[in-house]
């Protein structure tokens, strides 16, 4: 059984600050881990994905995520946030043996103070 947990429902930082959005997972085999962003009133947009190789994955707009097998984590980070990064961020897991279905975490709302 695959599960995804995002421990923070809401994170608030100042513009220019760094941010880390946390994601932990449980799985039973080879999986894909991904992050999606949802701006208010919109659908989700793909940010980045990890399957194998370099555990640090670079995404769009300066986002990156690091896979850790020992911690069962795939945290998303950005060194310096912009007000346009305000959105809800979803971590997700999928697997070939599960027909690629994405299982989503509950989401973390990121708010940026000016």
């Amino acid at each position, binding site marked *: 059984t695959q599960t995804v947990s995002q421990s923070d*429902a809401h994170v608030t930082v100042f513009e220019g600050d760094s941010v880390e959005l946390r994601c932990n997972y449980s799985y039973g085999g080879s999986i*894909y881990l*991904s992050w*999606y962003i949802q701006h208010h*009133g*919109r*659908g*989700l*947009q*793909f940010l980045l*994905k990890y*399957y194998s190789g370099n555990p640090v994955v670079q995404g769009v707009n300066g986002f990156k995520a690091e896979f850790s097998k020992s911690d069962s984590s795939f945290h998303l980070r950005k060194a310096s946030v912009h007000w346009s990064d305000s959105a809800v961020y*979803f971590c997700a897991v*999928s*697997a*070939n043996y599960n*027909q*690629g*279905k*994405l*299982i*989503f*975490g*509950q*989401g973390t709302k990121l708010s940026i103070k000016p």
Partner: protein
Amino acid sequence: GGIITQTPKFLIGQEGQKLTLKCQQNFNHDTMYWYRQDSGKGLRLIYYSITENDLQKGDLSEGYDASREKKSSFSLTVTSAQKNEMAVFLCASSMDSGGSDYTFGSGTRLLVI
């Protein structure tokens, strides 16, 4: 570039009514999905389809039907709308069922009065 379109954008229904939501994609993607998004609960999979005329139940399929008569379209039917129900229904597609990235539509917002 392709696009995935959901219609209608807003849907107001009455209790007990059968309601149909539509989704079209022109990416030529094989796999399509319907998710329900409730505030604070993330996204839950209702139905998905890995090819034309295929239907697979997700975790939340009870109370819903789905149809994939063409590769490009995937419709979802709420069989009997529940009073005061409010949710966003998100359609997505992916190239295959092997972990490819999803492309999402902008959603259909449902309110049942």
